[in-house]
């Protein structure tokens, strides 16, 4: 390295000064670019969605029909915005569908991921937990469209023949669980989508949680054991308590991923714009609707359908930004009382 340095120093001093300021300015510009891109994205969405927001009003959030309207009949004007007659854009089933699939995914992924993280860091010997951890990491890398293809061709059909009828048959008819009863279908629907999504979220939460568990100091855990706590009590009252905020943060990031996922859901949920009557029925989400509707929206010469898609995209964008900020806030807020010693009396 010394030789390289001397070779370099034969250049004039001003060349080095120029190089330093070039690095500094390039870095400064590059660091501003993501912010500029974010502003650009939000501005484009807002501009494009404005006519739709004006005409659709609150119906967008309550209505449950998504119709482009008649492209042959003469166009109608509402509030100065041209659109085909009979156009109706109600996104309630899509918004509800996005929340449903994500809720299923996170409800399953969270306990399973925490269990996996415990198994990987505390229970299994290193020679076996390392390759298993890598396998879970690889699962995160499988392209979502491949996961979706497997979901629609193999995973869904097999579940609908084996597991779904069993659940539907044996669950009691009480308020919440009755959503899991009724006809089982062929495996394209809410539950298949939610389970496929869970498979995508698990690696995210597991990787972060396992990392956090490794950072918990050994002494408090040994102290707990010396006091006669069982393995479960140490895990629940010391290890998990210690990193609680990090686990919550990872979960919310997984939720954000689930809300925005497109391809795995386009293929597995059946893409029907209706509220699912039971957990096995075909439905759709906002992201899947954007992917499947843009083509047909282009047939609307007034551009109103494309504008309504922009409103969908804006709603999805706002939801995911809020969820991301929530994750940040939770981690910041709880990172100081995450220590078990202050809370567990």
């Amino acid at each position, binding site marked *: 390295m010394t030789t390289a*340095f001397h070779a370099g120093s034969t250049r004039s001093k001003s060349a*080095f000064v120029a*190089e330093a300021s070039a690095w500094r300015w390039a870095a400064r510009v590059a*660091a501003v670019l*993501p912010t500029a891109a974010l502003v650009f994205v939000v501005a484009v969405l807002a501009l494009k969605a404005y006519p739709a927001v004006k005409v659709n009003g609150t119906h967008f959030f309550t209505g449950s029909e998504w119709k482009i309207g008649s492209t042959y009949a003469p166009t109608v004007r509402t509030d100065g915005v041209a659109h085909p007659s009979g156009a109706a854009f109600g996104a309630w089933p899509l918004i509800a569908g996005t929340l449903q699939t994500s809720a299923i995914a996170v409800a399953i992924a969270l306990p399973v*991921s925490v269990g996996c993280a415990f198994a990987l860091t505390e229970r299994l010997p290193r020679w076996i937990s390392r390759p298993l951890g890598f396998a879970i*990491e690889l699962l995160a890398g499988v392209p979502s*469209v491949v996961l979706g293809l497997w979901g629609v061709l193999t995973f869904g059909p097999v579940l609908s023949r084996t597991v779904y009828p069993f659940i539907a048959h044996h669950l009691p008819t009480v308020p919440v669980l009755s959503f899991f009863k009724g006809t089982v279908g062929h495996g394209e629907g809410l539950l298949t989508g939610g389970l496929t999504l869970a498979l995508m979220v698990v690696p995210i939460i597991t990787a972060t949680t396992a990392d956090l568990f490794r950072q918990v100091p050994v002494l408090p855990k040994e102290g707990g054991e010396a006091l006669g706590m069982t393995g479960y009590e140490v895990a629940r009252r010391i290890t998990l308590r210690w990193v609680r905020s990090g686990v919550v943060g990872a979960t919310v990031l997984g939720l954000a991923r689930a809300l*925005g996922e497109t391809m795995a859901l386009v293929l597995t949920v059946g893409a029907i714009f209706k509220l699912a009557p039971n957990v096995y029925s075909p439905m759709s989400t906002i992201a899947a609707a954007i992917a499947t509707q843009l083509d047909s929206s282009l047939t609307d010469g007034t551009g109103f359908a494309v504008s309504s898609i922009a409103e969908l995209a804006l709603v999805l964008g706002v939801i995911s930004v809020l969820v991301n900020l929530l994750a940040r806030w939770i981690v910041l807020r709880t990172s100081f009382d995450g220590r078990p010693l202050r809370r567990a009396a």
Partner: protein
Amino acid sequence: MPGARRRRAYSALFRVGTVVSLLLVLSPALWLLAGVAARAVPHWQWSVLWTGLQGENGGLLGPILGTLVLMGGVLVIAGSVGVLAGIHLAGTVRTAKAGRGRRADSVATWLRIASDTLAGFPSIVLGYVGYVALVVGLHWGFSLLPALLVLSMMVIPYIAKATETALRQVPLGYREGAEALGMPTGFALRKVVLKSAAPGIVTGLLLALAIAGGETAPLLFTAEFSSTVWTGAFIHAHGFGYLTYIVYQYWSYPSAHANDLSYDAGLVLVVMVLLLLFTARLVVARTQRHAESRGR
């Protein structure tokens, strides 16, 4: 206070639960890999890799090259911007009078929040914006450049974060030593700081490539699709082909050969991504062996 028996039962239940949850993840993961392979392997022919695609016939040459071109483009655009952004966020070159102190740090914090927010944006929404602003707005048409820009927008935050983390792990002593020897800032950055942060940065780049290669949603409305091999046009190209589109569409086409192509494309994609992740893992493993002071 629960009895000792109950506590022991809970503990046993917990032990079983951790192993069960591990199985709940690993068995579908294995099932997925086996399923992808089982659909592609029985009819697999190596010639798929170098035969051109004609409509629903032929092989995957165009789409494979297309995915590689996308990855290369992302490496150039997102790689340079992301690494530079990471250098700024880590504060490595913010040493001029104007860029020092609290105010610069709080600006960096805001830039970081914006970058994280962009990373959390659904990729389909970014694709839609690319369609509205670049494909239609600038009259670029479905082609390579809008696809590259949208993909880069997606992965720049990841690369910036990986670079920032890697730079922050470089011991302060290295930089102080370089300064004490009288090394110019830019020279020290290149030869000392970036060099020792290289493994972390390379890992981030490889992960970004894996994301870019496996993406579909933002490409549907920016690149659309074309079965021909890329002609070198960045805009006005009437579509640009890539592998994930074949997986997404060809499985539902009526012809059996098209379905087979879809499964083949899935297998090629999985192998490509696994190779990238495996390389990333090797980079990490190799460097951890040499640096005994680092690592957990």
